[in-house]
């Protein structure tokens, strides 16, 4: 029991994948427990009473919730193969982009998926503007956000590598176009080719199916 690592997750969740990748990049053994979010386990409710969400990491019986908190914890307990810069200033810059993705990124995604107040075209433009800032200021001419190798910032932006595509298909608007966002497009390709990432991605068809169901369920509910 002593140093066991367990991860409670849900297969379509990009937040769960961040943790999976971090654990695998550091070579940490863990047990994975798939949660049915429509029927949450007793354990999950006990471990994360505030949000009742996944991912939850349990280390030696102690639960940690919220993917960003989990990632910082993993980084501190297992500092080899670092996912954050050592220098405090560089670290603050990494955290800045992580925060940016979490705040602005999430609202851009939500607008795109559910249709923003001003319609789908507006939502797509909002998303594009967000991605342009990312490409120019966070990524620049680097191969990865982390430089020559991936780091925590890449793991956070992974949503745009693997989850945006089924969403673009569903909504019928391509946002991450190679002609408009060439460097980001290249990053997507490079990110997905990294061995640990390549071996640990959700099935795109299954994801599309899941998003399609989600969207039609919500759309059919009266407002």
């Amino acid at each position, binding site marked *: 029991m002593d140093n066991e690592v367990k991860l409670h997750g849900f297969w379509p969740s990009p937040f769960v994948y961040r943790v999976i990748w971090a654990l695998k990049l550091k070579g940490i053994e863990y047990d994975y427990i798939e949660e049915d979010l429509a029927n949450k386990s007793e354990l999950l409710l006990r471990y994360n009473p505030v949000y009742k969400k996944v991912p939850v990491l349990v280390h030696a019986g102690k639960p*940690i919730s919220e993917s*960003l*908190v989990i990632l910082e914890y993993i980084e501190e307990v297992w500092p080899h193969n670092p996912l954050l810069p050592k220098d405090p200033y560089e*670290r603050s810059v990494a*955290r*800045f982009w992580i*925060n940016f993705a979490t*705040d602005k990124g999430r*609202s851009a995604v939500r607008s795109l998926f559910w249709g923003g107040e001003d319609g789908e075209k507006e939502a797509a433009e909002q998303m594009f503007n967000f991605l342009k*800032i990312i490409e120019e200021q966070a990524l620049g001419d680097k191969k990865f956000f982390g430089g020559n190798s991936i780091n925590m910032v890449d793991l956070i932006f992974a949503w745009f590598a693997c989850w945006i595509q089924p969403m673009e298909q569903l909504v019928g608007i391509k946002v991450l176009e190679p002609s408009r966002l060439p460097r980001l497009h290249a990053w997507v390709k490079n990110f997905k080719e990294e061995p640990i990432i390549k071996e640990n991605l959700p099935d795109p068809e299954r994801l599309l199916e899941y998003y399609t169901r989600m969207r039609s369920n919500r759309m059919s509910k009266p407002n």
Partner: protein
Amino acid sequence: MGEESKAVVHGTWASAFTKRVELALKIKGIPFEYVEENLRNKSPLLLKYNPVHKKVPVLVHNGKPICESVIILEYIDETWPSGTKLLPQEPYQRAKFRFWAAYIEQLLESVAKLFNAEKAAQGKALEEVHEKLRILEDGVKEFYFVEKSPDHVHAEKLGMLDIMMVGHLVAFKAQEEVLGVKIIDPEKNPFIASWIQALIQLPIVKETLPPHDNMVGLLQFVKQTGIKLMDKSRGHDRGLESKLQSST
């Protein structure tokens, strides 16, 4: 100490997020220069230092800018490790701290929602705030409440969670006055109320927070003009303070 290694804080007087940074530096005993920004006429420096959000607070250290108050607090703790620790040293305790820090930000969004709410929606919005305070109370008790009294609250022992809450205290009191509601209600949230009471007595807090009347004036103005408070952002870029300054 050369020019480069000094610390400069760009902020505004009514910004609770700015207060967090000032307080953290004072607790650590780090001398710094303060630059009051006019958010309706942002300095070229601010735009250079925070091109993405164009907001305060920004901490400039060794000529390099750090943005976002919580990120700044972590930077301060890492860069000046001696003296009071803003976060615990042990990783699991740190994780819990960060979890509750994120929760405090959510709580503040609910408070902003309450402030922006129409009269009819105020009751429900207030309930949401009290509920979140209840959850926060339960969560942070283990860090603070030994024998039901926040006796950890001494100037040399203030940590990140204290700093985050205290920044908004004057705003809470002013909001209560402007809205005519009790946000921090000792009957609904006794531990929160006593925690805040303890914090507000500390000289280091008293000297950092803006005067109550100034806050009330500002918030009355905001409420009258219907400007959205906070608007889901975690810094200030709206220049409300300077609007008030120009109208008085």
